[in-house]
């Protein structure tokens, strides 16, 4: 079964953008606690630009949409999250190239995204970054069918909670060492919104 179409992918971006706008202050506040206080601003700007770019553009394939998303995020976000999310979507796009996006292609694409994040950011599990969430999502998808969205979001939430008690060893939060404990990682939180948005789109079906 095809799970992502050009239309749905655009809708996915739409849903992400709404969430980034709504939660801009929350994400920024999380980043003020252990970073430099701009994560919400960066994400809101990035997905605003993504929408501006893709809304009126005609795309032949999901891969094309995601390539556009990746390019826009890379060019408009900056900071650490820009290259990371840019790479994630680019890798997804590459994995989907020339294919229709069924469950298998989708799962493989997520795994590719995770590998891209790792390659770019050089983070492993437990370093209190958005890699944690993406990796757990990929792991979950390897075991479970894509329909179980609630379970997937629970995995995300649990991972976010896990980041709270970690000491960061990548990104700005790493400067804090143990002082980064007790705060949730902002990038993990924005990743959650990306998957939550995806869920809304996929759940509603065609």
């Amino acid at each position, binding site marked *: 079964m095809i799970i992502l179409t050009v239309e749905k992918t655009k809708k996915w971006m739409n849903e992400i953008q709404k969430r980034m706008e709504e939660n801009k202050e929350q994400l920024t506040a999380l980043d003020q606690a252990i970073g*430099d206080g701009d994560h919400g601003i960066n994400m809101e700007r990035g997905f605003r630009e993504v929408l501006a770019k893709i809304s009126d553009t005609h795309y032949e394939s999901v891969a094309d949409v995601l390539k556009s998303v990746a390019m826009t995020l890379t060019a408009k976000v900056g900071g650490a999250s820009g*290259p990371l999310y840019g790479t994630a979507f680019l890798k997804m796009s590459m994995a989907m190239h020339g294919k229709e996006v069924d469950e298998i292609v989708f799962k493989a694409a997520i795994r590719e995204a995770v590998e891209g994040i790792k390659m770019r*950011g050089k983070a492993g599990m437990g370093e209190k970054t958005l890699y944690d969430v993406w990796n757990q999502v990929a792991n979950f998808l390897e075991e479970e069918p894509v329909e179980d969205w609630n379970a997937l979001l629970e995995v995300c939430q649990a991972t976010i909670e896990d980041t709270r008690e970690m000491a960061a060893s*990548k990104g*700005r939060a790493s400067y804090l060492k143990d002082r980064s404990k007790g705060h949730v990682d902002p990038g993990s939180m924005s990743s959650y919104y990306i998957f939550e948005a995806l869920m809304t789109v996929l759940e509603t079906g065609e």
Partner: protein
Amino acid sequence: MKKVVNDVNQIVDEMIDGLTSAHSHYLKRLPNTTVITRKDVPVQGKVGIVSGGGSGHEPAHAGYVGKGMLDAAVVGEVFTSPTPDQVIEAIKAVDSGAGVLLIIKNYTGDVMNFEMAKEMAEMEGIQVDQVIVNDDVAVEDSTFTTGRRGIAGTVFVHKIAGAMAESGASLAEVKEVAEKTIANVRSMGVALSSCAVPAAGKPSFHLGDTEMEIGIGIHGEPGIKRVPLQEADQIASALLNNILLDKDYTHSDIAVMVNGLGATPEMELYIVSRKVTQLLKEKQMNIHRTWVGEYMTSLEMAGFSITLLKLDDQLKDLLDRDCKTLSFCN
């Protein structure tokens, strides 16, 4: 914190316009980019020097664009690394065929974005190399962290690499002297008050009326510890001791910078610099030159940083050479 701004989303664009229109006799903006270059780029036969980073650190980095320092500064959103496409534009604009050196401050975001740009530029056949400045001794340099941050010491790297490039040296030679500078420069800062990212609309952190944050980062990243406010002389020696614990400067010739983070008046910077001079002399170091002022700021943060650079004859010579930029001139 009140700001003199129009649309917070246009701040960077308007700042760049303001800057390049005010100084159009020797700076220009590459059209439709956030890149500021010398008017005469590419300078034939010269290695191009590109630096940059998030904005909010003015006069860094555009203030160091000019003869004898940078060829281009790439400007990001406030406290956010510029993106690869912008860095590529800068690289292309300054390359005369002799190659381009990127001077990057050690932040995950900056490193990733500049490296992506480097990869892409290399694919287009431009010779690009990079150095990463990590002078901030407040951060432990271990394999468990992303390493030290780059702060005010970066300005010395700009000056020295810029002078070397101006002299006609090769990319490898320019990189080598930049690395030497990085190996010999150490800094540490303190904040007395927070700054506010304009788009965030509120202070990045909060400090009590009698508190200060030792080891602050230039984006308001928390430092080593929060302690009661002390006298200028005490703060100066605390910062200096941390630097000297990290690197031995005894009997060396050194360059010193006391850098204001934004709101601290120059008057106070000189009170600090007085103590720094005294202490360094007591500790038998030979001060070659001292810079006091705002070189690498954090918006309207109150506080300052101290930077020491150990000089050999080559570094001394390069540091002393003429240069002509908005915020650094010999």
